[in-house]
C-alpha cells in the first residue's frame, strides 16, 4: 500500500463509513433539533430581554445586565456541565439534550440581547420624538418605528453570533447527547478508525454551509440603503 492508500484507508474507509452512516445521520437529526430549539428560544428570549430593558425600569435593568454579563463570560461548556451534573443536587435532573439546549439558549439569549439592545439604542432619538409627537404610545413607537430599524442593523452581528453558538451543539457530546460529534466519536472508538470523524465533519459542512451562505445573502439584502 502506498502512503496515500494508507491515508485513504484510515480516514476515508468505505466499509467503516457505510457501516456508521446511519449513526451519523441520526446524529444530524439530533443536531438539527438542538440547533432549531436553541435559535428559536435563544433569540426570542434575547429580544424579550432587550424590549424589557427599553422600558428603563432600573432594578430590572440591573438584573438583566447581570444575567447577560454572566452568560457572556461563562464558557458554554461550563454551563452545560453545571446544569447536567449540578442541577440533580437540586432535585432537577435535565437530560443531556435539555442541558445542552438550555445552556446554549441562555448564551445566545445573552449575546443577542446585547445586539438587539445596541440596535434599539442606535436608532436616532428624533425617530422616537417624531412618532410620539403624532400620538403613538411608547409601545407602538417601539414596535412600528424603532424595532424595524433596529433589527436591520442587528442582522449581520446576529447571524454571526447565532452560527457560532449553534455550532456549540457539539459540546453536547460531553453530556452524552447523541448529536453528530457524539455519534462520530463513539463510532471511532468502536471501529478503531477515524473515518466516522470525517463523516461528522462533512455533516457539519452540509448543515452549516447553507446557513452561512443564507446569512450572507440576508446581510446583503438588509444592508442599509439610504
Amino acid at each position, binding site marked *: 500500500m502506498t502512503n496515500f492508500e494508507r491515508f485513504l484507508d484510515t480516514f476515508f474507509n468505505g466499509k467503516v463509513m457505510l457501516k456508521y452512516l446511519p449513526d451519523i445521520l441520526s446524529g444530524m437529526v439530533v443536531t438539527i433539533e438542538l440547533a432549531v430549539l436553541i435559535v428559536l428560544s435563544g433569540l426570542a428570549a434575547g429580544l424579550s430581554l432587550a424590549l424589557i430593558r427599553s422600558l428603563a425600569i432600573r432594578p430590572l435593568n440591573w438584573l438583566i445586565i447581570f444575567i447577560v454579563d454572566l452568560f457572556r463570560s461563562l464558557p458554554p461548556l461550563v454551563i452545560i456541565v453545571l446544569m447536567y451534573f449540578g442541577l440533580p443536587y437540586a432535585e432537577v435532573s435535565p437530560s443531556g439534550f435539555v442541558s445542552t439546549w438550555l445552556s446554549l439558549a441562555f448564551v445566545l439569549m445573552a449575546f443577542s440581547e446585547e445586539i438587539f439592545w445596541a440596535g434599539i439604542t442606535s436608532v436616532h432619538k428624533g425617530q422616537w420624538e417624531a412618532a410620539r*409627537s403624532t400620538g403613538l404610545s411608547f409601545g407602538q413607537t417601539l414596535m412600528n418605528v424603532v424595532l424595524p430599524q433596529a433589527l436591520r442593523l442587528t442582522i449581520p452581528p446576529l447571524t454571526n453570533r447565532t452560527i457560532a453558538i449553534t455550532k456549540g451543539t457539539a459540546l453536547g457530546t460531553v453530556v452524552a447527547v447523541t448529536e453528530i460529534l457524539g455519534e462520530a466519536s463513539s463510532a471511532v472508538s468502536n471501529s478503531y478508525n477515524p473515518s466516522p470523524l470525517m463523516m461528522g465533519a462533512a455533516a457539519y459542512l452540509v448543515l452549516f454551509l447553507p446557513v452561512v451562505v443564507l446569512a450572507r445573502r440576508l446581510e446583503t439584502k438588509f444592508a442599509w*440603503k439610504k
Partner: protein
Amino acid sequence: MTQQPIVDARAIHKHFGALHVLKGVDLKVAERELVFVIGPSGSGKSTLLRCLNRLEEPSSGSIVVDGIDMLDARTDINHARQRIGMVFQSFNLYPHMTALGNVTLALRKVAGKSRVEADRLGQAALERVGLADRAGHTPGQLSGGQQQRVAIARSIALEPRVMLFDEPTSALDPELVGSVLEVMRSLRESGMTMIVVSHEMGFARNAADRVVFMDDGLIVEQGPPAAIFENPTHERTRAFIGQIQRH
C-alpha cells in the same frame, strides 16, 4: 384677545440639571394666529416649543392646549398630541417606510382609521404639500425639502389644532427652503394656528402675526413683525436683530 387662547402656557420653568433653560415663560396664542419665536441659540425657544406637546417635561408651570390641561396626570397625552402637530429640523421621517407609510402610521395606529381610509387621508395630505406623486418613495429617495414636506403632511393628516415648527428649514439647502415655506404659507392661509421657531426673517415679516423674542430663558419682548424688526425697544432685541440682518 377676546376669545379663549388655543395655547395658554403660564410660568413655564425648565431645568436640565443645574441648567435653568426656561425661567418663567408665558405664551398665549390665539386661534389662527401665526407666532414666530426668535432668539439666539440657547435662549430656550426650542425647549419652549417642545414643552408645549410635552416632548420635554416642564419643571413647573401650566400648559393648556385646546382646552386640554397638558400637565395633568389624568390627561391622555397620546390623545392630546394628535391635536398638536410637530415638525422637526431634521425631518425625522421613518426611513423604512414610504412617504405614504410615514403619513398613515399614526392615522391607523392612533386615530384608528382603516388602511383604506388612512391611505385616502394620507394621499390627500401629501397632495396638500404638493407631493401626491411621491407617495411610494422612501425618504432616501426624496430631497431634503421634499422630506420636510412629507413630515408636514404626516402632521396635518391628523388634523391638528396647532402646529409647532422647530427650525423647519435650518437643515435645508438654500434652494430648497422656498418649497417648505410655501407649504407653511398655504397652511397659514387655511387658518392653521402655528408656532414657528425659525430664523427665516423674510417669512416672519410677511406671514407672522406676532414675533416673540426670547433671550436667556425669558421672553424679552413681542409684537407685530414690523415693530420688532424696525423698532425693537430692548437693547438685547436690537442687538440680535442687527446681527441677523447683517447676514
